[in-house]
């Protein structure tokens, strides 16, 4: 019975309740709605142009490059949160540490801007 006192009981309970409710809500129309599948209705929507090749397209570097840079800046955010929470305990020593950390990452950021990696045109 001690699991109920642990802070993760509400998390799991809330997840079960939400997941069940959302699945029911989005699945209800399947149960209640009429079933009349016609050929045209099932075709993927192409603004009326018959769809040529399979849906998947070629690679564009900018999308996955954004995701990669997102990981690296996300790690920075997590470490800065760690520093922010113990800001009072660490004092000026902590501020210089975090300043060094942000400075190193700023160099990387400037490199990205100079190298024009995130050109979106």
């Amino acid at each position, binding site marked *: *019975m*001690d*699991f*109920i006192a*642990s*802070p*993760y009981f509400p*998390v*799991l309970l809330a997840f079960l309740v939400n997941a069940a409710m959302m699945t029911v809500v989005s699945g209800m129309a399947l149960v209640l709605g009429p079933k009349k599948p016609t050929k045209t209705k099932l075709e993927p929507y192409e603004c009326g142009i018959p769809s040529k090749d*399979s849906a*998947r*397209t*070629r*690679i*564009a*570097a900018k*999308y*996955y*490059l954004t*995701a*990669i*840079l*997102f*990981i*690296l800046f*996300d*790690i*920075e*955010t*997590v*470490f800065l949160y*760690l*520093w922010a*929470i*113990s800001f009072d*305990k*660490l004092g000026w*020593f*902590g501020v210089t*540490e975090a300043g*060094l*950390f942000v400075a*190193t*990452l700023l*160099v*990387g950021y400037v*490199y*990205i801007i100079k*190298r024009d*990696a995130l050109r979106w045109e």
Partner: protein
Amino acid sequence: MTTFVFAFLGILALFLGVFLITRRNPVAAAMLLISDFVILAVLYGLLDAHFAAAAQVIVYAGAIMVVFVFLIMMLNIPNEQIRFTRVTNIEWLLAFVGIVAAVIVAQASSLGWLQTAFPNAARILPNAPSENTRNVAALMFTDYLWSFELVGFLIIAAMIGAVVIAKQGRKH
């Protein structure tokens, strides 16, 4: 009760792991891996590593797997091209079974040693969950100071590496 929930989630994570490495469709495997990471985050929480749990969801499930999903969506790999497994030569399989046996034996015998080697050198392990993050941070910024700065350099190296590889071969 907590041990039961921990065991249940652990076994669920293992089943998801086994299920995901035997998938043919990489997006299905990525989704299973994401749910695996979230279950592991709850396991960390039950082991009183609260900030590690949050960081696990934010970094692993929320950032690294996004690149996997983007890649799989864009690489446009037809499913039939993905062969199932490559258990061709038996030596590999025997090597793997050998590793499995060795690891399990080592783990079983090392449990006792782990407890004796570190007789509860409790630096800061509060049981009050509300102080976990603060103490982890305090410990990291004092004792592991140099590792923290090196993390910055590691991230820069990855950043520059990724940009160079992505921009390579930009002839047109």
